[in-house]
């Protein structure tokens, strides 16, 4: 059995009296696509920050890519990729500059980085756009480039925070094709989304309500268990009674 890539055991984060993350527990395997769902304010962002090594938990254990979230958070940062809708690329740099900038930050050596940059631009079919400023590109393209950049250094895990918000339905699915491709190469995908059809593209999903994980399973099992026709119905059923919202 391979070691799980992400492990959380009773992971908890308190801000004063407020329990943002309430004893969450899960194991995620290499190459797994894990959907991390929950209402706004449920505690997803806080949990993700801990797993990315940006925030120390109050109690419980967690490790990412074999590194401990308390003691080795700098190592975690090196071994993960991260992308969100809010922060992905520098708008005032060109496509090529962005790829080289982020590749450099992740410590890819110059020669290899130049090869990888050309290779990536070719694979995305962006030869004509490679010297254009990112801000002139459509959102769908930016998101595809941002994802490719986030996995350029072949991390063990990539965290995707609402990666497809606002993107058209075709581009949204092309984005998921890229996710599948990365997962098939063994990269673990940890993704949040508000599109419930996307929840069904995940191998397993968890649903967080008021800081705690109230359900964790394969989407098909979850639909069966909660007798929902789709994940939207399951989500509404579980999250409707949330006390917290933002």
């Amino acid at each position, binding site marked *: 059995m391979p070691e799980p890539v992400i492990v959380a055991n009773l992971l908890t984060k308190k801000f004063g009296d407020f329990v943002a993350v309430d004893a969450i527990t899960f194991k995620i395997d290499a190459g797994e696509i894990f959907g991390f769902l929950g209402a706004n304010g449920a505690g997803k962002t806080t949990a993700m920050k801990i797993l990315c090594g940006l925030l120390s938990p109050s109690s419980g254990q967690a490790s990412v890519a074999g590194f401990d979230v308390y003691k080795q958070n700098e190592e975690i940062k090196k071994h993960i990729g991260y992308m969100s*809708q809010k922060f992905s690329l520098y708008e005032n740099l060109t496509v090529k500059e962005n790829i080289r900038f982020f590749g450099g930050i992740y410590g890819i050596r110059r020669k290899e980085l130049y090869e990888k940059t050309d290779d990536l631009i070719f694979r995305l079919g962006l030869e004509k756009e490679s010297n254009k400023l990112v801000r002139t590109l459509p959102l769908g393209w930016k998101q595809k480039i941002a994802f490719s950049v986030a996995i350029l250094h072949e991390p063990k895990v990539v965290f995707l925070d609402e990666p497809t918000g606002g993107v*058209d339905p075709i581009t949204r699915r092309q984005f998921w094709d890229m996710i599948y491709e990365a997962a098939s190469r063994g990269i673990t995908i940890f993704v949040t989304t*508000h599109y419930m*059809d996307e929840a069904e593209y995940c191998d397993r999903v968890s649903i967080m309500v008021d800081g705690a994980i109230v359900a964790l399973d394969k989407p098909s099992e979850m639909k069966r268990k909660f007798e929902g026709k789709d994940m939207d119905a399951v989500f509404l059923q579980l999250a409707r009674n949330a006390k917290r*919202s*933002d």
Partner: protein
Amino acid sequence: MAEVIIKNIVKTYTNASVLALNNVSLTIASGELFGLIGPDGAGKTTLFRILATLLIPDSGSAKVSGFDTIKDYQAIRKIVGYMPGKFSLYQDLTVEENLNFFATVFNTSLEKNQYLIDEIYSQIAPFKKRLAGKLSGGMKQKLALCCALIHEPRILLLDEPTTGVDPVSRKEFWDMLDRLKNRGITIIVSTPYMDEASRCDRIALIQKGKILEVETLENIKLKHNNPLFAVQSPNRHTLIAEIRSFKNTKSCFAFGETNHVSFVNGIDDFELLKEYLKEKGLTDIVSSQIAPGIEDIFIQLILENEAINA
């Protein structure tokens, strides 16, 4: 009666190199809850800004409650409530101060129109002393809606009010819009979520500055009822690849656990595909003919539109 009449509007940016709106015409009836549905970059915000008199089109015209958006912009500003997609209230004023400010600017008071916003305001009232910049996303959205309603507008323009909002809060927001509509307010709302189309009286599907369709949801479904098939198998990744490699497949897109497939020759090809997949060694295939949903239709229209442009 028509509340909003948009005629042949064209709008370009950066020296005409970006075509934001490509000859858009729309008529929206009084009291209608009208949805503008399309992805980021479709031109939704540009259209809102023109209706809100904040932007002048290159050509074409728009009338709001009989007023021209260029000539009569002052009259329009009094009767329109606009909630931009980007949070645009004063971050360094409190919740209460923002509301009072907008009420005063429109020559009214919080007390006078409280009845309109009561339901929404009661949810943020506990935080009325908090700075707007310190509110969470959901509360900002509610405050912005209150500020857009404070002067009793005839028309409400809501630019992506539910983007990034979870399914439960999205449902609550639409319930709220239903109640505002029942008060006779005309509401134009944009969204990237296709499933919200069912909450609108009529919708316009918009992409790359062009309106692809304007209809009630029922009529859109009747009009674009092309044969569509759902095909599912536990081995989903191989399945998609194999369906796409089948020679008569027109399109294949993942929809949750299943895939929606259209063919050159409809049901005949469907039977051939099933044989084809068996030959390829795929097992436990579950498949059936289905009625296209709004997202299927939108994808189809995008593909057709792109084929025309290509």
